[in-house]
């Protein structure tokens, strides 16, 4: 294996830059973050920006030379479980966090030396309270602070220079299953964070904390009374009969039976985005609890919903529910990508969202109006289409577990609960105007059963088995999508689910990782043209990122199999009637990869 020599690394310069970063302490956090984001050499937020584009203007590495990339350096996190998210790069320092126990490292990019490390003390009892592996999707940065969202729900601000704790606040009660896996996001002077625990009956909420003090500014629940959801019955709008209308009084309470909303889920563990001009925060809510739909008939508002909220007050400007009365666990938490594109030929400030339910939605992000909703995986069969007037999916009874009763096994539903895409974020390339989407191509059998709620215990109520979609051996695709028309432009089949966040760059490339552990880069104009492929130490469920240091561009990614991808694979590939022995894809995946968390950083060889 060839490694890139690095004689250009000069420690002295690193110190100089660190001092520069440390100096303007008094400046407002948002100005500092804006400055960091404006410099394309940094990767200052999880998506590289506030719009969730995952696009970099860097082009030293491009379609002509990406094939020559080599490993520049590697770093082991020392943790075995699933590694989602990515590091941040600000100036001469890289910041990264591991899965539980959430070790934080600051690395000097000149020397790859550990500048500081921080490991929180967390009760091991939180591990079994995490539904789908002990993942952590990364850190946030602003105002010379690093923000860590611990598994046990504690949100911490660390001094970016020293790793010392500046403030810390408890965001939920892990004893009740309210834990965290999401990355915190900083918009303006607020740290936004969500909550997990939809499988524990946690009532979901999103919270804004003051970036400087950690004081709670507002909290908005996904379900319940209007006041607790920060809904104005007259001013919060939703798509109704082909136009935006006020949601009206008690829009959530009316859609549940009794008090089920109190343990009704709608958690908020995805990626968040922000439109500065509109001052609106965008995110989605997850599945209603339990997974047995028969126990919660009704639309279960506002689970499975895209929210647009005023960043300063938290008040909801609009809401759009994608999957009323969920019967499949199609969480609506996937990222909202804010892109200015032509929709049906008209320039539009759009919000583009690839939902777990298999539909790619394009909405007007100012008003919340529904513009496009089309399947982004042809395997999707639980609904024929989305009715553009009501915004509701037209559900196929055969694939609707709630219609068919408890203890009935509903076979061959596509997609599986994993969704046609899960948290693995897509990328928007403003050059091609296309969206590059890592997807799953997996179906399921779903059998709901009666379950009683016990505080702090799993509250699932369905047995699932998952398997590859019919007609082929592929369990995932990497697709290029036109959100203006709702069409798949190109689709590149992968053996397993593509569970890695995509990156596009001005160099005309799109990069993503695979569960076998390959980092791949393809031509943005023809994604079937594979330009680069490298086998990292473990399966990739992390997100590809890029930065420039001392005139050299780097592309990096975490490897470390786990998360629901690993679990889902495993759960999926044994057919119950085949008895005891695990067969098929899971064992196949085990033939390719093993546990273990590392970061691999690539660059072009020295000329």
């Amino acid at each position, binding site marked *: 294996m060839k490694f890139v020599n690095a004689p250009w690394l000069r420690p002295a310069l690193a110190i100089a830059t660190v001092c520069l970063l440390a100096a303007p302490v008094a400046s407002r956090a948002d100005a500092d973050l804006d400055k960091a984001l404006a410099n394309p050499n940094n990767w200052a937020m999880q998506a590289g920006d506030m719009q969730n584009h995952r696009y970099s203007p860097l082009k030293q590495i491009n379609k002509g030379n990406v094939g020559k990339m080599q490993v520049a350096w590697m770093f082991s996190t020392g943790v075995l479980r699933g590694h989602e998210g990515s590091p941040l790069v600000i100036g001469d320092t890289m910041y990264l966090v591991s899965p539980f126990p959430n070790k934080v490292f600051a690395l000097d990019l000149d020397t790859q030396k550990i500048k500081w490390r921080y490991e929180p003390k967390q*009760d*091991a*009892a939180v*591990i*079994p*309270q*995490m*539904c*789908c*592996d*002990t993942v952590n999707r990364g850190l946030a940065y602003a105002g010379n602070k690093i923000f860590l969202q611990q598994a046990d729900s504690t949100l911490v601000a660390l001094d970016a220079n020293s790793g010392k704790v500046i403030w810390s606040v408890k965001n939920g009660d892990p004893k009740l299953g309210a834990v965290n896996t999401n990355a915190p996001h900083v918009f303006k002077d607020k740290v936004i964070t969500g909550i997990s625990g939809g*499988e524990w009956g946690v009532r979901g909420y999103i919270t804004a904390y003051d970036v400087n003090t950690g004081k709670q500014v507002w909290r908005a629940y996904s379900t319940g009374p209007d006041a607790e959801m920060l809904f104005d019955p007259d001013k919060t709008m939703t798509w109704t009969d082909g136009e935006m209308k006020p949601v009206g009084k008690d829009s959530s309470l009316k859609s549940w039976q009794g008090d089920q909303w109190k343990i009704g889920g709608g958690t908020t563990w995805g990626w968040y985005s922000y439109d500065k001009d509109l001052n609106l925060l965008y995110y989605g809510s997850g599945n209603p609890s339990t997974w047995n739909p028969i126990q919660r008939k009704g639309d279960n508002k506002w689970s499975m919903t895209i929210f647009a909220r005023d960043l300063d007050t938290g008040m909801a400007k609009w809401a759009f529910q994608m999957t009323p009365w969920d019967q499949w666990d199609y969480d609506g938490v996937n990222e909202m990508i804010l892109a200015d594109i032509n929709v049906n030929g008209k320039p539009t400030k759009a919000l583009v969202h690839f939902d777990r339910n298999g539909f790619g939605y394009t909405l007007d992000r100012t008003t919340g109006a529904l513009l496009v909703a089309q399947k982004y995986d042809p395997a999707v069969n639980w609904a024929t289409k989305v009715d553009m007037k009501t915004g509701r999916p037209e559900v196929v009874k055969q694939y609707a577990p709630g219609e068919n009763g408890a203890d009935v*096994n509903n076979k061959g539903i596509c997609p599986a609960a994993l969704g046609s895409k899960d948290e693995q974020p897509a990328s928007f390339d403003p050059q091609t105007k296309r969206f590059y989407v890592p997807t799953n191509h997996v179906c399921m059998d779903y*059998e709901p*059963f009666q*379950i*009683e709620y*016990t505080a*702090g*215990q*799993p509250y*699932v*109520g369905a*047995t*699932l*088995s998952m398997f590859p979609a019919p007609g082929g051996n592929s369990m995932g695709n990497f697709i290029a999508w036109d959100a203006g028309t709702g069409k798949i432009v190109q689709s590149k089949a992968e053996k397993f689910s593509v569970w890695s966040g995509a990156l596009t760059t001005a160099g005309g490339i799109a990069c993503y990782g695979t569960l076998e552990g390959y980092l791949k880069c393809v031509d943005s104009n023809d994604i079937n043209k594979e330009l680069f492929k490298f086998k990292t130490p473990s399966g990739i469920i992390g997100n590809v990122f890029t930065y420039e240091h001392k005139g050299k561009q780097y592309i990096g990614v975490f490897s470390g199999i*786990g998360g629901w991808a*690993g*679990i889902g694979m*495993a*759960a999926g590939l*044994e057919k*119950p*009637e085949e*008895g*005891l*022995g*695990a067969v098929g894809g899971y064992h196949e995946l085990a033939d390719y990869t093993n546990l273990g968390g590392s970061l691999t950083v690539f660059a072009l060889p020295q000329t």
Partner: protein
Amino acid sequence: MRTMISGAAACALWLVVPAAAVAQGMAPPGAAAQPSATEAAQTSGNKVTRMEGGKVLYTVVDGYNVDSNTMNGFRAWRAAACDRCHGANQQGLVGPSLIESLKTLTKDQFITTVREGRLEKGMPSWKSSKMVTQNIDNLYAYLKGRSNGDITRAHVQELKQ
């Protein structure tokens, strides 16, 4: 598929020898890799009745019709969502294969593990779950049946008397 043999057909009775090749990795620290001492199976056609400690552990017909206690064990398994870690077929995912573990765990060790958990490995303590604690013997019977290979499908149904 075999057909039911009714009445008192030819019965066989034998002792099951503890498997020699057990997966040592599945045993808890310090645990003797020795299953419960007395295990006996009585088969009548496609019906298997297995004894442990002088009592009936479970009865299973056709590999998936089980007695009501064992059925309650399956219900507890399902309600506690054990499959999220141990797999829908107990084959092991993030958590170990219970098909293998139950070959080495004694009943006491099983009960201690379920009650106290192994938090650092992600196994919760089920002390506070009524569904689990009240059905712990039944859960043991169900998983033992799976591990022994007498229950051939994870998804069982109640035996009609």
